[in-house]
């Protein structure tokens, strides 16, 4: 069924985020031959419209207002609702980013529609558009369909491949005016979080502990291994939440993203949030009692065993290696 799909382009520091092009590709699939309309919202964003078109949007609608310089749920929802009113789309695709996560449910509530969040793939199957998304932090997946009303989804970045950029593509760029008023949340300041403690982002070797470390003292063998390898100690969210270590050690979606040469994950189950922060490490070693732990799926080498047995043995072996070297 051909449908008109609006795709929200997301602008950061004056450029379109990659997820915008992935969303266009998802929009193309969702449109099933219908029109893909890019939407840009900001203070001055229409110059970016051509790029959305090059990546597959048929045309672009922009809403520009100085009150839209920064994202606020009120401002952006007013802008978007004006576009929705003028375009009457049958589908909406946003990125599952901080902005998309914040805005999409508000729009869905306004429209009384469903919303399928954090989609990693979509395809037409058996007359339905089927959305796949992780549940239980990626321990399982579900396939969902929309049963009533608007087809609305947010897509997880880096999962749906963008279409090939074609600079010969052209399309209409128009603007929609919206009255942006009564913003109830005002951004006073944006603070970049300063790194504190061990600089995980720069470390060549990281020994990270998870819930399996069991206590603050449980980090000791990891620290010893790290010191032998001149590495830094990191942690999963689980370990931080359990108070085994400080949040500044946290690696993952909301912590630090690291890419050391060697990442040794000890007692880390491998929640998708954690994997997001470390899966680009050059070599990953997993040590975990649970052979089913997700971490083994991204690990180059794995040892199924108790970290309290394995880690001290590793430390000894590396010491020997250093002596012999």
């Amino acid at each position: 069924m051909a449908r008109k799909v609006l795709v929200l382009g997301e602008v950061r520091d004056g450029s379109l985020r990659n997820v915008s092009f992935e969303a266009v590709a998802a929009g193309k699939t969702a449109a099933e031959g219908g029109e893909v309309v890019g939407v840009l919202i900001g203070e001055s964003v229409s110059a970016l419209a051509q790029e959305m078109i090059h990546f597959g949007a048929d045309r672009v609608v922009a809403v520009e207002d100085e009150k839209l310089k920064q994202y606020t749920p009120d401002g952006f929802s007013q802008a978007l609702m004006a576009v929705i009113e003028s375009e009457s789309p049958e589908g909406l695709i946003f990125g599952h980013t901080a902005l998309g996560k914040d805005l999409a449910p508000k729009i869905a509530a306004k429209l009384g529609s469903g919303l399928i969040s954090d989609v990693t793939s979509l395809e037409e199957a058996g007359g339905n558009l089927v959305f796949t998304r992780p549940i239980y932090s990626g321990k399982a997946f579900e396939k969902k369909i929309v049963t009533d009303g608007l087809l609305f989804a947010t897509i997880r970045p880096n999962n749906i491949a963008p279409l090939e950029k074609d600079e010969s593509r052209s399309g209409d760029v128009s603007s929609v005016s919206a009255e942006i008023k009564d913003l109830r949340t005002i951004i006073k300041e944006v603070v970049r979080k300063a790194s504190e403690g061990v600089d995980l982002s720069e470390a060549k070797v990281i020994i990270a502990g998870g819930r399996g470390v069991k206590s603050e003292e449980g980090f000791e063998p990891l620290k010893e291994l790290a010191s032998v390898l001149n590495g830094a100690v990191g942690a999963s969210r689980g370990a931080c939440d359990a108070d085994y270590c400080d949040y500044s050690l946290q690696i993952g979606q909301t912590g630090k993203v690291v890419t050391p040469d060697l990442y040794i994950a000890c007692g880390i189950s491998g929640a998708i949030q954690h994997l997001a922060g470390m899966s680009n490490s050059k070599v990953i070693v997993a040590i975990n009692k649970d052979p089913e732990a997700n971490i083994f799926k991204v690990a180059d080498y794995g040892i199924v065993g108790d970290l309290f047995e394995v880690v001290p043995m590793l430390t000894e072996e590396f010491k020997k290696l250093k002596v012999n070297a």
Partner: protein
Amino acid sequence: MNIYVLMKRTFDTEEKITISGGKINEDGAEFIINPYDEYAIEEAIQVRDAQGGEVTVVSVGTEEAEKQLRTALAMGADKAVLINTEDDLEDGDQFTTAKILSEYLKDKEADLIIAGNVAIDGGSGQVGPRVAELLGISYVTTITKLEINGSSATVVRDVEGDSEVIETSLPLLVTAQQGLNEPRYPSLPGIMKAKKKPLDELELDDLDLDEDDVEAKTKTIEIYLPPKKEAGKVLEGELEDQVKELVNLLHTEAKVV
């Protein structure tokens, strides 16, 4: 200060997920308060202790959520409400849950509503902002700090690593990000007291809702476990030999040590 917390009972994060009969197998699984909702409960208690007022924890679910509601009461919440949908609903989605919660909350004159920013099972993060919109109040998601001064609030929001300092006013809905606080464990006296605190149970009827009003807009057609990926090498043999082999592989094959 009239404070409400939206709470969900979820699988323990450590639970292994298995599927039977096309559904997530719940047999023998441990259940907990959704970890992000624990931050919400803790924050609500702290705000109440500083400002006065009352904390009511609300959950949409089945009778089994009573255990987690009691835990919230033991932590220090004043009242709990279970909106039991067991007899009325087979499947709901976020539209459903938000509709039910907003119907319950619409005449409660809440000053502050706190929810987790996401539930670790479904992982959609929709219900908080949806409820705020349905109630016509503003919201701030993924917060790491909340300061209330009279009817205004200063909130720090985590935005992919950066922090936004946001000024807004009550009534307000916020969703908790990790780092907001450190949820307390229920104390023994807290657990004793919780037994006597009110835990009300409502059904859709009590909210003047029909099944049709809250019928899901989306449907899950399949649940499956991720395919076993061709992962790297899981070593075998005696642990001692595995460790030796690993060090050797890292040194000679991967050349990272």
